[in-house]
């Protein structure tokens, strides 16, 4: 492994499983910036994850991108549990892009709430394997059986004599041993770290200003770039006037990146001032307008022939298929009572507080990145396709991410940084998007409009439910099931956890020039609002209690029933006016929110959110609670305020002033009750989001009788206050 940071470690250290034990010095500086190796890690998989220093201390590398969800701590903790390390003294490191950090699926990518689900078993095996090597080395030193050596908190003990050795004492010998293929894992009953709340390892650096985010990268000889995108959705840069920019102080170069123009300068502020003067010509022809777009989507809902059916749940090949269109139409037409509701959600920005940014250095044929990226193995192929830089000549170091939420899995800003660096070979260039560029030119959560039709019996029993959506597929994902509409836009319009005698989801993929991508909870971010609004409306029209009605729709779902009952009990369901409930099951976790509101005239106060959350095994329960708190406030920001608007092809909103998010002024009191069990493992970053918007609008309905079917809530004339 070559040193890529310019800093060499002073202590001797050992990478377990390394052929070159003791010969080389380990990378340093990677406490802050992830290792990236374009060659296979010479030390093998163990070496990529664990470094043991001769003083006995241990450094563990997280394979995931740390964007707030806590994987810089939770994933190393899993490994440390099996290793028997002294967690108090373990240091953790960020990873770069490397096959050694791939999930069992073969992919390295941080998203889909799957870090703990994907890495739990592999990291246990890595830790247990390393522990067995250390034990074997100690047993050999003492001339005893391996079974006579115990491990706890970084200390190896000879149970015959009571003698002890530190990991550092035997690391050099251990590193020469073969890596065990099937190490014995701990009995979960003996876990000392997993399942116990502790302090996150990344937090001290985040309170003293030393944590290195993508925007903080500083390299010798580094230049700076600022960027301006073609303002009209779908347009590329054809003509632009940079005559003023070129003459401004510090400006070195103006580069056409095809989707944007970049200015490279001695300092960021010089680059930003210069790029602000550049005029990019608008294209001729039709341009996106949000009102016209919504009308188009609404009109599409009438087109039976374009509506492709979507599955109601299940897993391949045992899909639960939607009812056929003629059958569901007949069932609803013939029903004694009919309900019909129209809902909509708008396009949303991710609004990560750290805007898109990346630093790249092109030297000859090679390109090296330092960036806040959720992506892993997808970066090199995309950069190669856009720049011609060979895939195997691309190295990615990962920094901390100042928020991700799906957006930083996109490669657009990595490609831009590479193209900028190609214009300045031999010099690292750091590109930063302004907030305005980030708001207007991100890849967005797609807008969706929905119409739900319900057939009821004369006594109010649900006979059939048909939900149809129209919306835009993701530009960043072409994945589809054969014959079905885009899953990332329409999945779970009628979620699997609500069973009706007859159901149909169908949807129309709308092609629009707006850039769209994954956003926290993906389709759940909209489907949760549609489905739990609909269920609440049916309960109201049939005189059922909203909690009791949801329970009646669940079948074989003990975890769902448990969270619903727990939340209702803790919140004192029904004890006051202005309560609303929402439920979601996703990423193998279950979440119920009960929201309490006070509404005076149209002044809305969110008094409290009471939550029950079941993610199975909670590696760190307090961090799970933190993620649920985060999903609540993220979802409330969207429900209350979130909306991007296009006029004449251009986004109207610019920053947190006109694209507001929840702040302390309106953030609710939150009380989270965890149900944890070691039998299963669920994701925690996203499941708390889908049910918060409907829980809130259902609470507003309970308080006022006003049913909000179109987000954001402020568009219905509400003022949000505390």
């Amino acid at each position, binding site marked *: 492994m070559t040193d890529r940071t310019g800093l060499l470690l002073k202590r001797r250290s050992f990478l377990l499983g390394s052929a070159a034990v003791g010969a080389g010095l380990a990378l340093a500086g990677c406490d802050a910036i992830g290792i990236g190796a374009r060659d296979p890690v010479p030390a093998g998989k163990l070496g990529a994850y664990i470094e043991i220093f001769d003083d006995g201390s241990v450094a563990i590398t997280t394979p995931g991108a740390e964007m707030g969800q806590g994987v810089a701590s939770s994933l190393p903790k899993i490994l440390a549990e099996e290793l028997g390390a002294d967690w108090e003294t373990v240091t953790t490191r960020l990873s770069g892009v490397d096959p050694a950090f791939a999930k069992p699926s073969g992919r390295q990518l941080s998203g889909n709430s799957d870090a703990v689900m994907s890495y739990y078993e592999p990291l246990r095996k890595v830790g247990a394997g390393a522990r067995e090597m250390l034990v074997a080395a100690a047993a050999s030193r003492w001339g005893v059986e391996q079974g006579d050596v115990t491990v706890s908190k970084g200390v190896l003990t000879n149970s015959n004599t009571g003698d002890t050795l530190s990991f550092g004492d035997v690391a050099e010998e251990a590193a020469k041993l073969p890596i065990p293929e099937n190490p014995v894992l701990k009995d979960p009953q003996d876990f000392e770290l997993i399942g116990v709340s502790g*302090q996150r390892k990344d937090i001290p650096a*985040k*309170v003293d200003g*030393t944590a290195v985010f993508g925007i903080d990268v500083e390299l010798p000889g580094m230049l700076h770039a600022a960027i301006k995108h073609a303002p009209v959705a779908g347009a590329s840069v054809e003509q632009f006037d940079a005559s003023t920019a070129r003459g401004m102080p510090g400006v070195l170069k103006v580069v056409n990146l095809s989707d944007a123009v970049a200015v490279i300068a001695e300092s960021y502020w010089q680059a930003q001032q210069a790029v602000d003067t550049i005029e990019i010509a608008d294209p001729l022809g039709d341009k996106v307008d949000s009102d016209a777009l919504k009308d188009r989507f609404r009109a599409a809902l009438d087109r039976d022939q374009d509506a492709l059916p979507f599955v109601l749940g299940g897993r391949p090949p045992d899909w639960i298929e939607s009812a056929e269109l003629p059958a569901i139409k007949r069932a609803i037409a013939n029903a004694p009572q009919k309900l019909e509701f129209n809902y909509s959600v708008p396009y949303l920005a991710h609004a*990560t507080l750290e805007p898109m940014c990346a630093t790249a250095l092109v030297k000859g044929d090679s390109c090296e990145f330092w960036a806040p990226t959720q992506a892993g193995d997808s970066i090199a192929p995309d950069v190669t396709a856009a720049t011609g830089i060979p895939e195997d000549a691309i190295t990615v170091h990962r920094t901390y991410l100042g*928020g991700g939420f799906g957006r930083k899995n996109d490669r657009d800003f990595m490609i831009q940084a590479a193209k900028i660096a190609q214009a300045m070979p031999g010099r690292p260039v750091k590109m930063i998007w302004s*907030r305005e560029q980030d708001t207007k030119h991100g890849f967005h959560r797609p807008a969706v409009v929905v119409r739900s039709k319900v057939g009821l019996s004369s006594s109010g029993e649900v006979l059939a439910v048909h939900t149809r959506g129209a919306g835009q597929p993701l530009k960043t994902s072409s994945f589809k099931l054969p014959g079905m509409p885009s899953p990332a836009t329409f999945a779970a319009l009628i979620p699997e956890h609500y069973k009706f005698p007859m159901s149909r989801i169908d949807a129309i993929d709308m092609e629009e020039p707006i850039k769209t991508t994954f956003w926290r909870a993906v389709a759940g971010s909209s489907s949760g609002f549609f489905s739990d609004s609909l269920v609440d409306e049916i309960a109201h029209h049939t005189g059922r209690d909203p909690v009791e009605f949801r329970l009646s729709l669940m079948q074989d779902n003990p975890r769902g029933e448990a969270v619903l009952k727990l939340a209702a009990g803790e919140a004192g369901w029904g004890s006051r006016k202005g309560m609303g409930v929402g439920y979601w099951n996703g990423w193998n976790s279950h979440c119920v929110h009960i929201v309490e509101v006070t509404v005076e005239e149209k002044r809305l106060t969110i008094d409290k959110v009471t939550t029950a959350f079941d993610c199975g095994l909670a590696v760190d329960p307090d961090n799970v609670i933190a993620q649920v708190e985060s999903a609540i406030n993220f979802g409330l920001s969207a429900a209350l305020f979130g909306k991007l608007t296009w006029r004449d092809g251009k986004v109207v909103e610019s920053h947190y*002033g006109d694209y507001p998010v929840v702040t302390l002024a309106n953030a609710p009191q939150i009380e989270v009750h965890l149900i944890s069990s070691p039998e299963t493992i669920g994701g925690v970053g996203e499941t708390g989001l889908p049910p918060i918007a409907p829980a809130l609008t259902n609470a507003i309905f309970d308080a006022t009788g006003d049913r909000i079917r179109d987000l954001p809530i402020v568009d219905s004339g509400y003022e949000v206050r505390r």
Partner: protein
Amino acid sequence: MTIQLKINGENRSVDVAPDTPLLWVIRDAVGLKGTKYGCGVGVCGACTVEVDGSAVRSCSVTVKDVEGGAITTIEGLSEDGSHPLQEAWIEEQVPQCGYCQPGMIMAAKVMLQSNSSPSEDDIRSQITNVCRCGTYPRITRAIQRAARST
């Protein structure tokens, strides 16, 4: 032009255009990266620093505006991360992505100087910084914990 600054108790001279926002001088000319860029228009508070006892959004003042003033950034809060606010932030496990927290902590520091025992409502009305991860419940608890310990 050369401008004299006093940052975290040290005198620094920087050679920048006088209309450069203080934020970019702190980050790129002085090299203190703890102060963050979030919006550039004084809305989000990620760039909050203390200037002569006041909380200032450093993206929205020029370096010339604060020449001669005493500037404190997150790096100047303590030598070793032991300021009561930093310790309280760790105790309450506040940060997630962590990007907003230096600005949040600096805003809290200035608030506590004029209100040593803030109520929840005081905190809600006086700290207007954005945390996109939504760590607000813990921010409130951490400020009150720090207030109790000083």
